[in-house]
């Protein structure tokens, strides 16, 4: 299995964003090998990697100031950018190689049999081929290799399952709660008292500063599935159950994902955006989310309309009396999000206007009804919402 790992490095190096590629790859080499070499006397590797990592880290340090807006839309499971996804990837490659070898052998034998033992013209019909009924020896011989392969696969699988499910979280680990709703994601940061929706900010993890994120997954209604392939496999969000999953991303950027379990009409547009920030940027983001939005007298009318039109029955806006619903996404910092309706459209003025007029045009089947707002009301609420940075 170890022999396969260098290929992962190559793949990763090609695909990681330019910003801090070197340090990411080297960091990862380091973590890989510090595990692999535990007690195996290959300490020089550690030293080498430490030096290299340090150099790599220096070269990438200045980039880590602003949010990385690379959108990682193509979520190839064979291009993992997070620790658990990486583990899944290496076991996947092993299983695929085993399967490919089996396919080549059996497929090759089949092809050989088809070509070699084909009927070669009418003269072949005069006599039947020798009638062979079987052979205990041969049959035993070809039963043993599958058994050995199965034993090997079971051991590898069991080990990987343990590695991921019994992973020890460092004390610094970030913790978030994700609650699936039809058809959006509620995101809570219990350590920081922050509530947001659909766009999940998590910190970047690196060797010097390991910050994995533990996610508690719950559901408010039906079963949903959380899947961002480059970060980890998927886990279902089951009502009445508390599932957990962890990620440890080592590349910044915006990762796209989907709900994977049919949850109703807008299952397809229950999109996920995970935004991986460097710890500095992440801290800054947390600060802005913790702050109450400043009420702007210019948009006071919109704020009144928001409450008067019953928006507050479902939506919460911190610091606005009458807007404390929990049925729909928290809008306290709505304008700081890049998308609307769980990723269905960019959060710009035009889309927001269309959404306020009738959410069913952008996301038919979503649970927000057409509130029958007049144009004046729409304008006022729109102006107000766009100040909620």
């Amino acid at each position, binding site marked *: 299995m170890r022999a396969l790992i260098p290929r992962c490095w190559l793949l990763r190096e090609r695909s990681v964003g330019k910003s801090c590629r070197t340090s990411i790859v080297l960091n990862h080499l380091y973590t890989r090998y510090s595990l692999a070499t535990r007690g195996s006397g290959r300490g020089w590797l550690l030293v080498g990697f430490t030096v290299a990592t340090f150099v790599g880290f220096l070269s990438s340090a200045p980039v880590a100031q602003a949010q990385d807006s690379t959108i990682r839309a193509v979520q*190839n499971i064979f291009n993992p950018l997070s620790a658990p996804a990486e583990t899944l990837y290496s076991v996947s490659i092993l299983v695929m190689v085993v399967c490919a070898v089996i396919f080549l052998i059996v497929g090759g034998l*089949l092809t050989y049999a088809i070509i070699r*033992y084909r009927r070669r013209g009418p003269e072949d019909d005069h006599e039947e081929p*020798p009638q062979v009924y079987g052979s205990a020896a041969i*049959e035993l011989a070809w039963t043993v290799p599958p058994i050995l392969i199965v034993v090997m696969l079971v051991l590898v*699988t*069991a080990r990987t399952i343990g590695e991921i499910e019994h992973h020890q979280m460092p004390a610094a680990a970030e913790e978030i709660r994700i609650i699936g709703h039809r058809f959006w994601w509620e995101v809570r940061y219990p350590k920081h008292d922050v509530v947001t929706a659909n766009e999940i900010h998590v910190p970047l993890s690196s060797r010097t500063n390991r910050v994995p994120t533990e996610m508690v997954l719950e559901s408010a209604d039906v079963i949903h599935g959380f899947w961002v392939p480059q970060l980890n496999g998927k886990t279902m969000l089951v009502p009445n159950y508390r599932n957990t999953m962890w990620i440890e991303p080592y590349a910044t950027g915006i990762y796209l994902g*989907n709900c994977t379990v*049919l949850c109703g009409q807008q299952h397809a547009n229950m999109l996920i955006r995970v935004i991986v920030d460097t710890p500095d940027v992440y801290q800054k983001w947390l600060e802005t989310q913790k702050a109450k939005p400043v009420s702007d007298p210019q948009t006071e009318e919109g704020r009144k309309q928001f409450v008067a039109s019953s928006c507050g029955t479902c939506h919460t806006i911190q610091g606005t009396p009458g807007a404390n619903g929990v049925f729909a996404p928290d809008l306290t910092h709505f304008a700081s999000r890049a998308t609307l309706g769980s990723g269905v459209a960019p959060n710009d003025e035009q889309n927001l206007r269309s959404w306020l007029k009738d959410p069913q045009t952008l996301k038919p089947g979503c649970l927000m009804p057409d509130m029958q707002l007049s144009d004046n009301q729409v304008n006022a609420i729109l102006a107000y919402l766009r100040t909620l940075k």
Partner: protein
Amino acid sequence: MADPATLKEIGTELRPAPPGHEHGSLTAWIQDLIFTVDHKKLGFLYLGAGWMFFVLGGILALGIRTQIAVPNNHFMDAEAFNQAFTMHGTTMIFFFAMLMVFGLANYIVPLQIGARDMAFPRLNAFSFWATFFGGIFLFLSYIFGPGLYGMGAAPDASWFALAPLTSRAFSPGNNIDFWSLGLLVSGVGSITGGVNVMVTIFCYRTRGMTLYRMPLFTWLVLVTMFLVVMFMPPLSAAQIMLVLERFFGAKFFEAQAGGSPVLWQHFFWIFGHPEVYILVLPAFGVISEVVPVFSRKPIFGYPMMVAATVMIGFISAGVWAHHMFTIGMDSFSVTFFAFATFVIAIPTGIKIFNWLGTMFGGKIRFEIPMLFAIAFLFQFLIAGLTGIMLGCAPFDWQLNDSYFVIAHFHYVIVGGIVFGVFSGFYYWYPKATGRMLNKRLGLWNFWIFTIGFHLTFDPQHFLGILGMPRRIYTYQEGRGWEFFNMISTIGAFVQAVGAILFIVNMIYSARKGQVAGDDPWDAWTLEWMTSSPPPEYNFEQLPEVRSRRPLWDLKHPEDPDWKFE
């Protein structure tokens, strides 16, 4: 043994001519089909109804593929799409593949074991009509589904109807009830049918046909029917619970009331995984008949083939939770079910090796049934290997509920079962109708369908690897899915052409096909001993069997099989 004339009288007595019966009139023919208890006619009914549902399910599939051919498409809306894939899945599993299983079993098994009919002919008719009306009832949901609530029409909660999406709160209207009641009724038909076939095989074999001399198709059908009788009831029970929940306020699966949505998944997959083997074992049976006959050799390692089948039957009962690896099970359970799943690869591998061993040293005739059988072997090999990938739980955490799974199980169901069914049709059609299926049309059918199949389902593996989840009616540009989806949709239409050619061939050859004779393939099992099509009483004289290949013994008296068994 009674003489043929007496037997003929007995045969006609069993089915009294309907009043006003005139030979050849359409009404009389329909009346005959409705009242028949003859296993061959019921076999035709099963197969005919199966192909009818296949066409319906196929049209839905084309709709699904058209909708997701390009990003942001508006061919169907979300609701229509959810209904389409729910109905497609339900139809193809319960009303196409199941009907093929029972149709082939009905038609072939009594002939292969030298029986005059099924053990319980009336029950047989009941099974068919229950299954058939279950399917019709399901499709009536398109008309009557809105019910009093004006919500929804056809069932739209996917073919495994995950709770709590099926509860009243999330599925108002009556569409889910059409799903559960329709399948409940057809499930009763399947269970009674299963009992019937089992009893027939155990009690109605001709003289000399010990279990150890039974043709492999019959053996595989026997194991299948055990699975039907054991694993349809959990589904029926779960559906009854669902009906109780929706109509009478029971709270089995509803999370808000303390029920457990996970319970539904356990019930469903305890049925759902053996169901895969219920469908695929008869296809294995067809291949186990076709490969030896067209390789001109007996099946390699018959006892191992039987043992492997029984093993598959047993193990299939203990792997269901591999459909639920992502539900948050503890790591011990995950490991156990991954282990059980891998173990099932061993008997399946043995079967593939034995088919291979049969072909080795043979003189393979590339008739159409054999072409389908060879394609089956390659495709089932790939399906099995992707199954191993999915069985590896950590890999499954990535692949579960993605298009990779879709590709995998369509490789099993289309690449395996449908190809097996095609093979079986080309093989037994001459027996059932007395005419050969047209070979030229057959070749077109084979190549177009095979190419279409690969165009449709090969790209879906890559879609899964690129993170496309199943059951989405739309997707945004730039996710890397456009190309593969387009190819897949083109493939679906190519496949449809292939399937149409098959149906055309069946209709065309029934009248214009070359006359087959009793034994066109120079085969060895009992069904080829009687005339084509067989008379109502099947055999003029019930044959006596001394080996697994009674016709070989007759054709080669100097070198009979029974000397070696």
